[in-house]
């Protein structure tokens, strides 16, 4: 039976993790590789590295970091943040990334999704979709939630799946940071409508939230950042809890 995946997300700036962690055991809480290795040991199923660097040297710093991660990490990892072209992805894949994620650039240029799928295979193309409620309708937002669009979330998800996306990373900006649980209804709606996996993100605060998003939300994977970084939920304990409550997980 396929396991439900638990995916910690690391925000990267200039090759370092930001937001920090309270893992006292780490020699250097800003070192993404050290933090990633710690998550691997705890039982993370995959990792996502989101690069928020704005400098011109971005590509170079990021590709160096990707190589460093690839040589140390023995589980799949996704790299996202500011990917605009097939060439951007070529560089990351050559340096050892397993998957890449695109978000705003896919909204601006949907053709990018099919170009990436054709060049690298759907399995490595994750389309991140940030969503927000407008008068009771889930719509797509871009630029980290700052810009609204007219795209209906479920329709956009279907579009990118048809264009060749291999997975969808669905983040509810309504729930993100609230620790009040994932956006269950829209996650279920999109996951059940598509044949590709949906990674739920935004709102995780407790272990039952994960159970809920896997069961009621029909999510294939769940992603979280701060609750893992600050040790509020330990991945091993979370997976033990899920197993006890009959959610299939890799232990």
């Amino acid at each position, binding site marked *: 039976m396929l*396991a439900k995946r638990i995916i910690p997300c690391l925000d990267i700036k200039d090759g370092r993790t930001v937001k920090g962690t309270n893992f006292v055991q780490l020699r250097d809480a800003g070192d993404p590789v050290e933090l990633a290795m710690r998550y691997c040991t705890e039982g993370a199923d995959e990792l996502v590295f989101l690069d928020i660097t704005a400098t011109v040297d971005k590509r170079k710093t990021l590709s160096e970091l990707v190589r460093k991660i*690839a*040589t140390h990490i023995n589980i799949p990892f996704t790299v996202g943040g500011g990917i605009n072209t097939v060439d951007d992805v070529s560089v990351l894949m050559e340096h050892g990334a397993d998957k890449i994620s695109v978000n705003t650039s896919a909204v601006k240029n949907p053709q990018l999704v099919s170009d990436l799928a054709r060049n690298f295979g759907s399995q490595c193309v994750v389309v991140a979709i940030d969503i927000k409620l407008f008068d009771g309708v889930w719509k797509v937002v871009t630029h980290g939630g700052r810009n609204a669009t007219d795209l209906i979330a479920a329709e956009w998800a279907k579009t990118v799946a048809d264009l060749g996306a291999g997975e969808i990373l669905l983040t509810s900006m309504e729930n993100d940071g609230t620790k009040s649980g994932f956006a269950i209804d829209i996650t279920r709606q999109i996951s059940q409508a598509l044949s590709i996996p949906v990674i739920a993100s935004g709102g995780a605060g407790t272990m039952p939230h994960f159970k809920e998003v896997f069961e009621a939300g029909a999510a294939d994977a769940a992603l979280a950042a701060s609750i893992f970084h600050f040790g509020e939920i330990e991945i091993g304990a979370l997976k033990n809890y899920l197993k006890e409550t009959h959610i299939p997980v890799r232990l």
Partner: protein
Amino acid sequence: MTTVIIKYNAGNIQSVLFALERIGVTATVTDDPEAIRSADKLIFPGVGEASTAMNYLKERRLDQLIREARQPLLGICLGMQLLCAHSEENDTPCLGIFDVAVKKFVSPDLKIPQMGWNRIHTKENPLFKNVQQDAWCYFVHSYYAELNPATIASTRYATTFSSGIHRDNFYGVQFHPEKSAEAGEQILKNFLAIGATSK
């Protein structure tokens, strides 16, 4: 010992290279016939589409080279499927080293491709030495090899299929050992420890 990753037009082989590096093995990625013939170990990875991959192999006569391999060869994912007789993916005749059909998953309620961690139920085989029974491994695929006499590992998704096959010097795994944490690393180590056998 020389380990060669057979270079062909199919997907990301970097992660295999890095996985070998993690266990202290430097592999060469090449499509040079002489380098392939003289290698001690061959790894035949692949992500992609079967007919494109077969055409590429035929154009460069790598198909014959692979069939004639005498040294241990490990096909991974699409690489394993190409070792079989035929794939439903674009109705493609494959290398025929294993007399096995590759079929597409059909399921009304499961997601296809299978993407993520699933368990491998293993038979006793050098490839799985020191690997826990029912170990979790990482899969990404829409097509699968049917169960057959060469099956050394099986996995359940929509149906029960071959997640590992072995005959003579040829080994194939449907999952990605290079991304399957400790179990995957052990399988790669085991493969590299297998002595050359004559057909």
